[in-house]
């Protein structure tokens, strides 16, 4: 079945429909990782986005039960050059195509994905639509494409109620803006007891759980849409050690008087970052479209701890007035590099120090 991809600027790519039939509108972003399509599709940070894979052969190893980052695919659509319909991997339980169909995700294959990537690189992230409808007329959709925006996606991906995981170690309050499974696993691997709080709970409610530390999760969308969450973080700062990742990092910056901006085409894939204190570079897994601006932060209160080696954007901040540190990248993911998992250890250490200092 034929499908068409239409971009906001009128560009059209004609290909073949994959996944569910129909039409979808979304923000088109490209992902440069060569493996990990399943993890990306199910990453809440992709909420409302149509993901274009730069690697041409997608679906080779199918889809399995164990590699989801959330309960379902979060992306609105998918763009690949060539979809593999006969996957080969011992853990595969279904093909990517069947998986997309079963979750009503619309996709397109057989287009020049490199040409698309170059367009997005040059013009920046763009809205667009994929359609396999035979009566699809791009001009009728132009307004909907243009006006599309991802509004408060955190509300859609956060958990509905508090979830509790037992653990013998420190108690962590994990604020769920769209938390990835691997982050929960990283805490569990360190023995933590975890309370996952929905994004709409108050600071008091969180503190009532008497956590040893607070973790701000990753999540989708524009951090400036999250006024309530920023307010909550302001109230928590200084009271407990705080570790933020992704959206959590951006929200912490805003809560500390910082500012964020939308990147031209985001960071989605593997990126080199530098831990400035260690003077050491790491390859990290990333999936974000916004970044913290360094200049608005008060240098007496916050220092940039990590930077992106490609474009020098802020990748991590250490706060001086409160026991808070945050990073933009995913320190430990099942879909990506693992070397920066040391940050979880630092969080544990910070909780220990904080607890001891209070005891004295």
């Amino acid at each position, binding site marked *: 079945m034929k499908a068409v991809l239409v971009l906001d600027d009128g560009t059209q790519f004609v290909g073949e429909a994959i996944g569910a039939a129909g039409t979808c509108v979304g923000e088109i972003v490209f992902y*440069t990782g*060569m493996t*990990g399509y399943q993890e990306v599709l199910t990453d809440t940070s992709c909420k409302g986005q149509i993901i274009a894979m*730069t690697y041409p052969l997608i679906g080779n190893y199918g889809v*399995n039960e164990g590699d989801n980052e959330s309960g379902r695919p979060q992306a609105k659509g998918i763009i690949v050059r060539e979809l593999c319909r006969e996957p080969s991997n011992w853990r595969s339980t279904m093909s990517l195509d069947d998986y997309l169909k079963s979750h009503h995700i619309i996709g397109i294959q057989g287009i020049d994905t*490199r040409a698309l990537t170059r367009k997005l*690189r040059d013009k920046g992230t763009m809205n667009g639509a994929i359609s396999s409808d035979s009566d699809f007329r791009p001009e009728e959709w132009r307004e909907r494409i243009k006006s599309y925006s991802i509004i408060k996606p955190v509300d859609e991906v956060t958990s509905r109620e508090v979830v509790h995981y037992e653990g013998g170690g420190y108690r962590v309050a994990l604020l769920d803006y769209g938390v990835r499974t691997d982050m929960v696993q990283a805490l569990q691997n360190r023995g933590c007891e975890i309370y996952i709080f929905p994004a709409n709970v108050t600071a008091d409610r969180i503190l009532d759980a008497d956590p040893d530390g607070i973790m701000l999760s990753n999540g989708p969308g524009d951090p400036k849409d999250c006024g309530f969450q920023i307010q909550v973080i302001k109230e928590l700062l200084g009271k407990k050690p705080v570790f933020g990742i992704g959206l959590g990092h951006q929200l912490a910056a805003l809560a500390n008087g910082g500012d964020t901006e939308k990147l031209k085409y985001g960071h989605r894939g593997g990126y080199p970052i530098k831990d400035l204190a260690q003077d050491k570079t790491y390859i990290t897994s990333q999936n974000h479209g916004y970044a913290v601006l360094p200049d608005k932060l008060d240098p007496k209160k916050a220092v940039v701890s990590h930077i992106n080696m490609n474009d020098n954007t802020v990748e991590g901040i250490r706060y001086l007035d409160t026991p808070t540190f945050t990073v933009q990248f995913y320190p430990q993911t099942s879909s990506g590099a693992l070397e920066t998992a040391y940050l979880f250890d630092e969080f544990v250490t910070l909780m220990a120090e904080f607890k001891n200092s209070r005891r004295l």
Partner: protein
Amino acid sequence: MENIDPVGVHTGDSIVVAPTQTLTDKEHQMLRSAALNIITTLGIEGGCNCQFALHPTSFEYAVIEVNPRVSRSSALASKATGYPIAKVATKIAVGYGLDEIKNAVTGKTYACFEPTVDYCVVKIPKWPFDKFVRARRTLGTQMKATGEVMAIGNSFEGALMKAVRSLELGIKTLETPLCKELDDTALVSRLHNIDDNRLLVIAEAIRRGIALEEIHSITMIDMWFLGKFKNIVAMEELLKTETLHTLTRETLLKAKKMGFLDEVIGKYIKAGKKQVREKRRQWGIKPSYKMVDTCAAEFEAQTPYYYSSYDEYSESVPTKHKKVIVLGSGPIRIGQGIEFDYCSVHSVWGLKEEGYEAIIINNNPETVSTDFDTSDRLYFEPLTPEDVEEIIELEQPDGVIAQFGGQTAIKLTNPLADQGVKIFGTGAKDVDAAEDREKFDEILEALSIPRPKGYTIFTFEEALNAANRLGYPVLVRPSYVLGGKGMEIAYSDKDIEEFMEIINMEEQEHPILVDKYMMGKELEVDAICDGENVLIPGIMEHLDRAGIHSGDSISMYPPQSLSFKIKSQIIDYTEKLAKALHVIGVVNVQYVVFNDQTYVIEVNPRSSRTVPYISKVTGIPMVKMATRIMMGKKLSDFPYGTGLYNQGEYVAVKVPVFSFEKLHNVDTSLGPEMKSTGEVLGIAKNVHEATLKGLIGAGFKFPEPGDGILFTVRDTDKHEVIDLADGFERLGYKLYATGKTALYLNQHAIATNAVRKLHEGSPNIIDLMEQGKIKMIINTPTKGRDSERDGFQIRRKAVERSILCLTSLDTAYAVLGCLQMNKKVENLDIVNLDVFKK
């Protein structure tokens, strides 16, 4: 990178794909983390290579090996991703950090990143089995390939098909005559063979409808790859049902995306490749060129490194500069090695000096020519007429240089010239005249230059007839080949029968040559001609007499035993030939001196294997000069004059290097077909010392006085052995020989122990070898059933036991000369190559 062949086949002998195709991210990260842990624990600074075996149905994995250095795979990985591993490793070695080294591809980002590719790369090894037809083709843990090809595509099928045709095996698709005659049962059992033909056997099995599961259960090749092979086979079968008239645009485009050449499509739909090409034009189907940029287009790249795809958007935007395409030499193989890469690179330099933009087309990841910063623009593509023509159509260069890429490039001269492409240097007509027996004979006759008598033949009967008219021994060989491929000396009708059979195993486009074999001294010349004048940088003299391929012979510069008469004849003939063939650039001429008369053996109006050698030892940058002459310069624009260039006081001796210990069942005796896989150069003030340096460099392990030396030679060679044996005896070696030879030597008062031949019971030669009593063997191959078998066994045993085995008496005399000097390695003078720069 993922090996298509499961564990058990050396990674250098495996078909490799990059990036990994069948690993989930979890598996990928698991191995990646293990590699990082290994590197960190070992404290590696620079390159490191880790090889893993991953269980196909669990997360279990094992480390196969770790090479704490830049490896063969590093070159492949560098070309596959655009990340220059060795260059970065070197900068690390001198103290830079990854965060300080710029990524030369983007010019913006740094070396501390992991390249991400948006295409698929396939590497296929190039094995020497087409030359060593008797070698055991089984692949295992001992690497046998001499080279490799790499292809880039944005589908696996496209990349694989490109790689297959880059091998220059006459195979352009997965369908070959191989295995066609086997029934299904025999075919399935053939699947158990792990050899170089496995891909083609699998393709045939798929074609017969044998289930992929069954093929998988035998080969253990991942189903994903088998599925891809099936797609190609299905396309071949689909095309068979089409004709030029029924073929749709959709099918044609799909076939092109899968990497099918017009020629192949034409063959299946029973049409000419021109007609298929016309169809493509009509439907607007042409390749677009995509960039290799290390970052999947995320950042703007500055490196013009391209591969073809059948997409709509091409990223290669040709410049308006004056420009020339240099055709590369493809995979490294016996007879066409890295020498031609040297030539391609030097040609690029010459073009740059003349102000031209230089464009390289090549498919070999091991070369300097395919470094993205060697040429101004690099197309990593197969070297077939279609692939090259498409690039020419896009780039619209001033012309093409085909002289420096060995036969790979020369073969393209005619098809390109037919398309109206300007070939710089010697014209296609003249290239043809040098290869075409009749045309060449006419030229020689007109110039009164003698050559050994010979005939051009096509069939076995004609070959027999020719051989008998010339009288045995005769030299039999296909035309248009390098490295004497398929070349043999025939002593009888039976030999002719056997050789013709082997030659005809491959489809022959060109006639076969049968020449009278003259056993004399061989000489070789590389010359530069600007159309008016000729410069001969030097004459090379082969130590081994005619009959041993020039590439396998020890070769000396300057010549050590040439009379004034012969030297003058060589200069005269070379000048006449270069002018008669209208050579613009480089020409190689091989001579044999027989009864004090020079005969021409062959003329190659192109750069030869010896050009780097002679350039180095004369200090004349031949390729750069030749390139600049092709662009219009004259010899008079250079300071080297014309005629034979003055020779210096140093002697350079080239010694071939062989790989027999890696190739089972290959006869190590030297003959007219080249067998060496490399060479070294020894330089000294006299020929013996230069030879010694060369032999040491080539890995010769000399016996010590007191050690045993075994002589087993042809009857006709016996008289030549006396001085040799005498010399070794005087040096204190213990001599052994078989019956008749021992008797002969003893009669000449050289004390020799008689040993039994293999069929004469124990203890025989082999027993002595195994007991370590024999440390060197001088063996000239004898004809005849038993002795052939004996000789072969002795030589193979020598390889196994690392016993030096010389099959040329000339080399044996040279070894004696070296040993007589009684010089230790530490007493050899160190010579700077600059001594040749005058």
